[in-house]
């Protein structure tokens, strides 16, 4: 898809939706309605949205522990997402998964994942499935810069390359791995530079620029769809919140955070570009934000009013067997 005002508006709208969804989820945590933890995607929205805007519904997406954005960008219901964070029966996973496992299989969004680097193999597997079935579906794997150290990265990408599978590996390099700055534990700066080991193209981009993400992802997706094999994209980004809830963030300065927020907020950047190009008026902008806020408000109401899962749900969905284990 080539870049048009419509695409931009859709992306811009989705980015707001993700932003406001998460800010509300954070607020609901303080109210005690959302439990467990949240890995906030705020600040990184351009990546999920830029990439997913190049996808069809039948393309596969696998995510990480930080996947609210991946799920929403693939089209998941904001109501069900919020209900999942509340642990309600109407959640995307019936309350069984929570924030780290949000998924919508009807959209081929095959789930967030609580294990760092665990999605890279399975995404290579969905791509193998497409190849075996001779469809032209593309598979997208999102993962963090920390995940690039895991053996799964090495093993899976090697096979993705070996069989020229239709998969795009998207590393969200937010420069931190939980509480540790990447520079303390990494030996090379750019994850994209590892692509040579796997004989695939590697490209490093500005992950705060939705348009750059959109363009580069578009090429990689098209390449995959043509059967020319995987691409490794590193999108440089920054998370505006702590690693997960309650993170005291002693490992970085608030100055650093503030600088990123004011200079490199992906939503502000896209909005400004669109206004410059005359693709967005202030009024439209206001409407988009109001609309997103209203959706989020409705999602909270949906979640609040939804029923809890009950004991009857506890032992379902384990296997197709009744348990039968004494």
């Amino acid at each position: 898809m080539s870049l048009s005002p419509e695409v931009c508006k859709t992306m811009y709208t989705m980015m707001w939706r993700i932003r406001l969804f998460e800010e509300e989820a954070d607020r609901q945590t303080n109210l005690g309605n959302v439990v467990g933890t949240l890995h906030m995607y705020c600040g990184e929205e351009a990546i999920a949205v830029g990439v997913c805007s190049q996808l069809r519904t039948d393309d596969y997406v696998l995510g990480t522990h930080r996947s609210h954005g991946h799920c929403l960008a693939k089209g998941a219901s904001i109501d069900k997402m919020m209900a999942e964070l509340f642990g309600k029966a109407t959640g995307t996973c019936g309350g069984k998964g929570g924030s780290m496992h949000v998924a919508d299989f009807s959209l081929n969004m095959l789930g967030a994942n609580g294990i760092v680097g665990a999605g890279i193999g399975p995404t290579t597997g969905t791509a193998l499935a497409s190849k075996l079935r001779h469809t032209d579906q593309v598979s997208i794997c999102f993962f963090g810069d920390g995940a690039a150290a895991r053996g799964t990265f090495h093993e899976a990408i090697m096979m993705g390359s070996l069989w020229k599978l239709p998969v795009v590996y998207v590393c969200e390099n937010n420069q931190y791995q939980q509480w540790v700055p990447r520079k303390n534990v990494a030996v090379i700066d750019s994850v994209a530079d590892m692509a040579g080991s796997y004989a695939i193209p590697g490209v490093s981009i500005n992950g705060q620029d939705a348009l750059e993400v959109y363009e580069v992802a578009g090429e990689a997706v098209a390449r995959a769809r043509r059967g020319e094999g995987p691409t490794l994209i590193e999108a440089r980004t920054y998370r505006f919140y702590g690693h997960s809830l309650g993170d005291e963030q002693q490992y970085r300065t608030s100055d650093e955070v503030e600088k990123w927020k004011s200079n490199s907020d992906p939503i502000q950047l896209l909005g400004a570009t669109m206004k410059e190009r005359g693709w967005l008026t202030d009024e439209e902008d206001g409407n988009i934000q109001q609309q997103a806020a209203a959706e989020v408000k409705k999602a909270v109401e949906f979640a609040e009013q939804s029923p809890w899962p009950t004991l009857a749900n506890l032992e379902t969905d384990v296997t197709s067997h009744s348990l039968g284990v004494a």
Partner: protein
Amino acid sequence: MKTMAFNEAIRTALHEEMQRDESVFVIGEDVATHGGPYKVTDGIAEAFPGRIFETPIAEAGIVGIGVGAAMAGMRPVVELMYLDFVTCAMDEVVNQAAKMRYMTGGQARVPMVIRLPCGIGRLLAAQHSQILESWFMHVPGLQVVVPSTPADAKGLFKTAVRSPDPVMFFEYKRIYTSKGEVPEGDYTIPIGQADVKREGEDATVVAIGPMVQKSLEAAVLLEDDGYDIEVVDPRSLSPLDVDTICESVRKTGRAIVCGEDSTFAGAASEIAAMIGENCFGDLKAPVRRIGSPHVPMPFSSELVKHVVPEKSHVIEAVNQSMAA
């Protein structure tokens, strides 16, 4: 009926399933060369070109790919050359394959078979002889299948391939070449259904894998002592057919649980504990467990011979039980 070896029975089932269902494919190390390490994948490359993937040495990657392909609706048959190498892919098995259906509230299906050649074969020592059934029993979401005869192997393998959920398929290397009658054509055996391999009144031997044959031989010898032994083969350890096992023990009042794996926290412990809990009032003697001692598998043949339980151990345990 046709006489065939255990590995041939699985191969036959695999061929038939690949014929029947286009979504079945094979992935693993060295599976397309020399018929695969145990000849189970012999002929697949020729009969089903493009549906067998010979991989780099990367078990985590292989099983991870299996999980993804399965979630996308394929039916991967993953071969791990030795069960021992599943240790390189435990996240993929335990946190991904097993839990995906549950974590997604029933959205995911992971119809994958992981083939696990296990136990002692040639003398290859501690890193090539493990069994570890109890690990996978302990993981909800996994099915643990352990056939003991070629006929069971064929029927259970077909069920495993068709199952919507992951199956850990244990193949004891020692019995790959053991022969038996196998029905021709298509048939399946439900996972979770034990098989009474021999009826008897005096004591129940619950035997896993190769211990089934040894127990049947022991039972014949025990006839001379006037003991009438029932041999129950669980065939799947998870789900476990509690009813069939307990019915037998309630009848005989005595139970001996036998596996080749070490007993300590092994499969036999679960079965023994379960019998103790459910059949307490009917037990005339303690439930005994037979298995390996709690040591890594040694290399030397002189040490190995003290490790793997044989039919003499079954006989001894039955005698003790009858004397109690």
